[in-house]
């Protein structure tokens, strides 16, 4: 089913919108959530919360890109669930990727530091394959093995690309006066 048709189902308050969403994007959302939340039970609960949240938001929201909208919502839902309940176990790859960010993660940037714009500008400077690897690791929290399989790069190459990109990001932010 086309995304436009799924959105129309939401607008007509047809509950089959949820099954259509699950059928087309359930696996993708589940994977994102599962990378952040370790437990299958928590992940399923989070996915159900996500579908309810989407049902409540569309309408009035009309996503430009339903897939991206669902991915962002799934990521936010899982992270929000973690924040609300610190007793929940974090996903392994999420944990490792946070450790990799090291000193960058320790820094508390001021809310008005335009950090989001700086990061988007930085991503714009990267070569597409490098950017894809970086986003798959730190946005989707994919494992090195998964990134290697999907990108065609060897695992050591992926690690090296990530290491260099993190260093470039640190340098980029420092040059723009961000104190780390």
């Amino acid at each position, binding site marked *: 089913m086309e995304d436009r048709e799924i959105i129309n189902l939401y607008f007509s308050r047809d509950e089959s919108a949820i099954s259509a969403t699950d059928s087309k994007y359930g696996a*993708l959302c589940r994977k994102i959530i599962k990378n952040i939340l370790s437990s299958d039970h928590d992940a399923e609960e989070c996915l159900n919360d996500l579908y309810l949240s989407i049902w409540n938001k569309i309408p009035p929201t009309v996503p*430009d*890109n339903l*897939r*991206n909208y669902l*991915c*962002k919502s799934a*990521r*936010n839902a899982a*992270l929000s669930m973690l924040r609300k309940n610190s007793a929940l176990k974090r996903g392994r790859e999420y944990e490792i990727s*946070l450790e990799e*960010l090291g000193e*960058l*993660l320790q*820094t*508390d*940037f*001021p*809310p008005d*530091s335009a*950090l*989001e714009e*700086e*990061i*988007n500008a930085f*991503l714009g400077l990267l070569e*597409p*394959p490098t*950017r*894809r690897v970086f*986003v*798959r690791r*730190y*946005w*989707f929290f994919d494992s090195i093995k998964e990134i290697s399989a*999907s*990108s*065609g790069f060897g695992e050591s190459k992926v690690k*090296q690309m990530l*290491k*260099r990109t*993190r*260093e*470039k990001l640190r*340098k980029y932010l420092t040059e723009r006066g961000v104190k780390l």
Partner: protein
Amino acid sequence: MKISDALGNIDDIYLSEALGPAPRPKSHRSFKIAALAACLVLAIGSAIFLRLFNAPEKFTPISYEEACEYKPCAEIIPMLLSDGYTLDGEIGISGKNVISAEFSANDGSTGLSVTFADSSYFGDVIRNIIIIEGNTCRYYADFGDSVVMYSLDTVDFTELEKIYRTFATARPEKGAL
């Protein structure tokens, strides 16, 4: 705000790019045949080239201690190691007195390849000037009988200039290789 929060708000364009398939080489039959033919031509061409120019066929890994027995390595590698670079993998030596080593900047920002060889090994390549080749930049330092090639895997003139100026003082002596 944490950087992880900022990373969560990346532009849709980058998200779509990451969700899309990674570019992979096409695997059409004709492409495979063409690739096979190209490999064959390359193999024959390489064999002729190696025979004509008497270039080394392969590098044999040697230990750091063994490498240090060669004068230029003994002088230059410790300097590289102490100047922000770490040896990446093994040092290689060919049967034709060519020594090659790969380094990574300690801050992970770049990779550096250094090759010591007799002057004839590098053929007619222009010496003592920075050469850009794609995303790399190189410098062939001419020491008369010997040449040292420094190759950075980023185009960074300043860094490359710093490297070859620093290590020019550790020039290989005649017959050291």
